[in-house]
């Protein structure tokens, strides 16, 4: 059942998801012990390849790897040959020669971790590729939700914000739907594409979305750095129209809804300060659960062995192309 890589949620089977969530439960029990380290990955090496800035995902993976006794190397992108114009492919050839066991990669280009996975024997874990996927975030979100709703089937999660640029929205919605959770998107019309999957409800009006009766409100970070054009007039207006304002928090408290956020939080934009002290905010739980989920993922993957070389992969893609059939 083990895989070489974790690149996306879309290709994960239900049993694999359940397995990882169960394993995460076991690993989380370690956290209360005075010695939190186990020798599961002793002698294994984990390379952190972060082309994009990250605090919590990076440190979460690092802590997870170290708790499994792996050696962790941080690839310093800022001081690497990448700044001398070396391509990702050349970098990967170099890294492959170093025979690392795991590569945890974050990059702004969608699909790039998959490309790396096809060129290395290392197990590649996608730690976020552009607006494509962020599978470990989705797993930790599902784990956090399952802690509150052990059987989450039929529960409703409303994801609010910049869906267009969000890998979290894509991965988390895919995973939650695989677990039987209903998902809806809410956000400005410019940031919630009209062509999202039909299985996901699409709202642009806050009141209408709340009338859908969600159990969890999942706020996405407004990523100003990804917005090459203006998608809404101002953060003040965004907060008023789509944010959790003080008045809206009161309503959420009355209804007993849970609030989640992948972080880092823009206070006063996605949510008002008071949300951080809200007793049903699961934001800290998400951070904590990130470590056990990433331990489960590292422990589950199996580095080494044959890897699908790019050429073979391309041939396979062509063979499965529906048009090129006589």
């Amino acid at each position, binding site marked *: 059942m083990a895989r070489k890589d974790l690149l996306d949620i879309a290709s994960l089977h239900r049993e694999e998801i359940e397995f990882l969530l169960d394993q995460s439960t076991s690993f989380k029990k370690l956290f209360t012990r005075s010695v939190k380290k186990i020798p599961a990955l002793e002698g294994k090496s984990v390379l952190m390849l972060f082309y994009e800035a990250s605090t919590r995902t990076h440190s979460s993976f690092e802590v997870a790897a170290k708790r499994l006794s792996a050696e962790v190397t941080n690839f310093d992108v800022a001081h690497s040959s990448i700044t001398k114009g070396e391509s990702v*492919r050349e970098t990967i050839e170099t890294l492959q020669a170093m025979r690392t066991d795991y590569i945890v990669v974050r990059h702004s280009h*969608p*699909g*790039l971790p998959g490309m790396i996975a096809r060129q290395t024997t290392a197990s590649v874990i996608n730690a976020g590729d552009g607006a494509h996927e962020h599978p470990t975030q989705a797993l930790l979100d599902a784990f956090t939700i399952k802690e509150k709703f052990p059987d989450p089937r039929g529960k409703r999660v409303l994801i609010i914000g910049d869906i267009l640029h969000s890998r979290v929205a894509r991965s988390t919605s895919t995973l939650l739907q695989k677990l039987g959770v209903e998902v809806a998107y809410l956000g400005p019309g410019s940031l919630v594409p009209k062509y999202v999957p039909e299985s996901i409800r699409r709202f642009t009006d806050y009141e209408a979305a709340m009338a859908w009766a969600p159990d969890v409100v999942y706020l996405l970070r407004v990523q100003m750095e990804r917005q090459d054009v203006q998608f809404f007039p101002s953060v003040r207006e965004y907060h008023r129209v789509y944010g959790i304002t003080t008045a809206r928090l009161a309503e959420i408290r009355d209804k007993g809804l849970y609030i989640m956020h992948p972080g880092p939080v823009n206070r006063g934009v996605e949510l008002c300060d008071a949300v951080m002290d809200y007793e049903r905010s699961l934001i800290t739980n998400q951070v904590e659960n990130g470590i056990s989920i990433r331990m489960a993922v590292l422990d589950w993957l199996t580095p080494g062995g044959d890897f699908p070389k790019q050429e073979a992969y391309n041939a396979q893609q062509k063979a499965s192309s529906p*048009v090129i059939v006589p």
Partner: protein
Amino acid sequence: MLLLQNARIASENSPVLLESDVLFVEGKIQDIGSGLAVPKGARVIDARGRVLMPGMFDAHVHFRAPGFENKETITTGSEAAINGGVTGVVMMPNTRPAIDSAAVVATVLENAKHRSRIPVYTSGCVTKNRDGKELAEIEGMHRLGVTMLTDDGDTTNDPAVLLRAMQYATEFGMFFASHCEVPELAGPRALNEGVMSYRLGIKGSPACAEEIIIDRDIRLARAAGAHVHIQHVSSKEGMETIRWWKSRGDVKVTAEVAPHHLLFTDEHIGDYDTNYKMNPPLRTQADCDALLEGLKEGVFDLIATDHAPHTPFEKAQDFVSAPNGITGLETALVSLYHFFVRPEKFGWDLVVKRYSAEPRRLMGLPIPTIEVGQPAECILFDTEAETTFTQDFMKSKSQNTPFIDQTLKGRVDLVILGSEILLER
């Protein structure tokens, strides 16, 4: 002397293939008829079952020279053309330096004369260095025979610049070929905005980015009294915009469609296969269907491949980093046969009209036909044989095509130009 016996002759004027012998003498067609006597010393080829037709002409190719000879040269590009049954091409000017002056045009044409076995024509830039600001020295290029002006690869974004260019160059009898794309809407990533762009997490380019410029450039041409040729249309609405303007009849507009836009959709990109990354991007099945209708109806005057070679190293990057474009010269005719002629979606007459005659009409060139007295410029196509597009088969320097290692029905067996047999299988 060459005698082809029992060839089936295709022409743009008739869906019926006439079976006949054809005698070539000193680069011309000397006789056509059944049971022609074999002249002394003539070579005889039994062409029974095979289709004889004029050589194709591709009005939209990138031969990458000068500047990007690692991708393609005039020699490799023209050999690729011959390999695909194409006996004449028009190069696009997005080279380095750009083909934006008489000096560069002269160099390119001189090279073509010595390094190609088929006629290679070039278009010229509308603006200097294709930067959309200052007009290129248009008349100087015209004196060397350039008739098509384009900033291909990009739209001439400032409508005032394009309008002035149209007003100026139309006086010399030149016409404009438009790559249609609002850059602010399209963004840098060649992927249709839709279900697929959401799934892959790449901000898509909406079809309206193309449609707006199609409409804009036709309106500008109308205002200037110019002839505008719309390049590589990819969307249904784009096709319908052209159809509407053509139905009005108050502006001279022609248009082309590429085989890949008829054949592939954004779904083919699958797991980020860069051989499906092109600009304009692949769109939906509904667009493909509409483009096919447009081709049959004549909204599209011609088929052109936008042959765009890139090195394997460039295409092996991730989808966002990889350059746009696929090669097309070697696969176009066989794929048109395999996917359209063989399943009777259209006939050989359409292929000859749209991929041989009309592109030459656009360029103001003589149109080769299989008729007595005409210069020999023709190909023989085996409809039962197959072509496998292996690396060894390809003559282009680059093999960035979705057809690589695929086998399709149909094969170009013979290419004749004047007294020369350029290719024989």
